[in-house]
């Protein structure tokens, strides 16, 4: 059993090595063209290979199609992060100065926000809003039901859906 695992592992690393040698330059150039920025492109290319390294892949038929797909996922994530950061910075402008986290804390808060954002992203917007009203704003289910114009049963169903989603993804 362990022998097989080792063989697989070996094959996995060889496949990635070949992928890296053959196509890293292409991926980097493609990302650079899309983003118009060498630094972000280098980071995203690196993230792409890191993610592939963490996978179990051993045979890659269509290297560029495969790379494109993984990189695309990372890119979507990157855009989402940018949108979140922007919303966060806009929000900072409107809260009283004493509620603004210290500059050091910004990064921790942003990182946590990003994780939660990613967990909630696949949920329908009403489910997401229900969850945020309860868990961030601390509203009672009955108040949420009134605010959103849905029944209490619906709020509970949404909450359960959102909690299950988060529990599945939290790490």
């Amino acid at each position, binding site marked *: 059993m362990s022998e097989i695992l080792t063989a697989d592992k070996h094959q996995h690393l060889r496949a990635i090595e070949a992928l890296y040698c053959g196509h890293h330059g292409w991926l980097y150039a*493609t990302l650079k*063209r*899309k*983003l*118009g*920025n060498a630094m*972000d492109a280098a980071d995203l290319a690196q*993230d792409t290979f*890191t*993610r592939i390294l*963490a*996978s*179990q*892949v051993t*045979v890659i038929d*269509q290297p560029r*199609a*495969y790379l*494109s*797909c993984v990189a*695309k*996922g990372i890119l*979507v994530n990157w855009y*989402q992060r940018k*949108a*979140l950061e922007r*919303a*966060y*910075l*806009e*929000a*900072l*402008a409107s*809260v009283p100065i004493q*509620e603004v*986290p210290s*500059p050091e804390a910004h990064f*921790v*808060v942003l990182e946590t*926000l990003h994780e*939660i*954002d*990613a967990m*909630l*992203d*696949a949920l329908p*917007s009403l489910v*997401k809003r229900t969850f*945020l009203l*309860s*868990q*961030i704003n601390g509203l*009672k289910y009955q108040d949420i039901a009134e605010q959103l114009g849905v029944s209490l049963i619906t709020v509970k169903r949404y909450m*359960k859906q959102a*909690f*299950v989603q*988060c*529990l599945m993804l*939290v*790490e």
Partner: protein
Amino acid sequence: MLSLRKEPPLAPEVLEEAAEWLMRLSENDLSDHERAEWERWKISSPERDRAWARAQLLQSKLGGLPPSLAMSALDRPSHPERRAALGKLALLLAVMPVGWGSWKLAQTQQWTADYRTRVGERRELTLADGSRITLNTDSAIDVRYDRQQRLVHLREGEILVQTAQDPSRPFLVSTRQGRMQALGTRFTVRELSGRTHLAVLEGAVKVMLAENTQTAPLIVNAGQRTDFSAQTFGTLTATDRNVGAWTRGMLMADKMRLADFVAELTRYRRGFVRYDPAIADLRISGAFPISDPQRTLNMLVQTYPVLVSGHLNGYWVTLSPA
């Protein structure tokens, strides 16, 4: 984010049970009887124990956030195209672990032709037909050229368009609010807070609203500007002579409120600029090198009764009365 969970996935029933306990805990204080039930549940199986460890992790993450900031950042309006992309991605990730080798990427899933500038960056592109597009700071476009049309979709930010002649294919710029057809040559388009701002420098542009086909298209001529939502047009006014100054890296301020000036400035620099409300209405005039925000701030301090203080390598800047 990139780490793969080593432990096996938890059964949906266990996650549902944990979710139900989280709901009961966040809604009510438990009675002694319920509390005992909860304790029994937690230790009744290793899966439940693991599920509850995750629940605690989740609670600690949620509990550590400043509510008003978190709410604004997380409850932002979502981007429909991006959501669609994410939906597809989730599907792919769900399929991914087993058969990568035999998995074929659909031929239709190509990279979108997507150009983008970072905050503070400006970039000029020449398209296949010779049309030129300048992207202002923090902007993104998609380019779709085919036999019938030349289409540029502004995803965010601001562009200056200078079209090349091609009688056989119209040149179109689309935003979430509508579609603009170039009837001449040079114009700027900016998307800001759910509205598109159009200023025409040469020629004319025909505008069609995205969600209101009852309203006749509006022709905007050289020297005119307007803004529009997906449903209605704003008023048509004369452009000021500084339209497009950004393509030369300049911000031309003419008795601009400091609040508006700061809003412009923050488009070009990463980080955050806060100002004392006492100076929000201070009127600023002059030509500022907007692509060099630090110099712009220095010039502001030299000319106006304003103090600049910053920390965290300038990520964080405060303007106060001198």
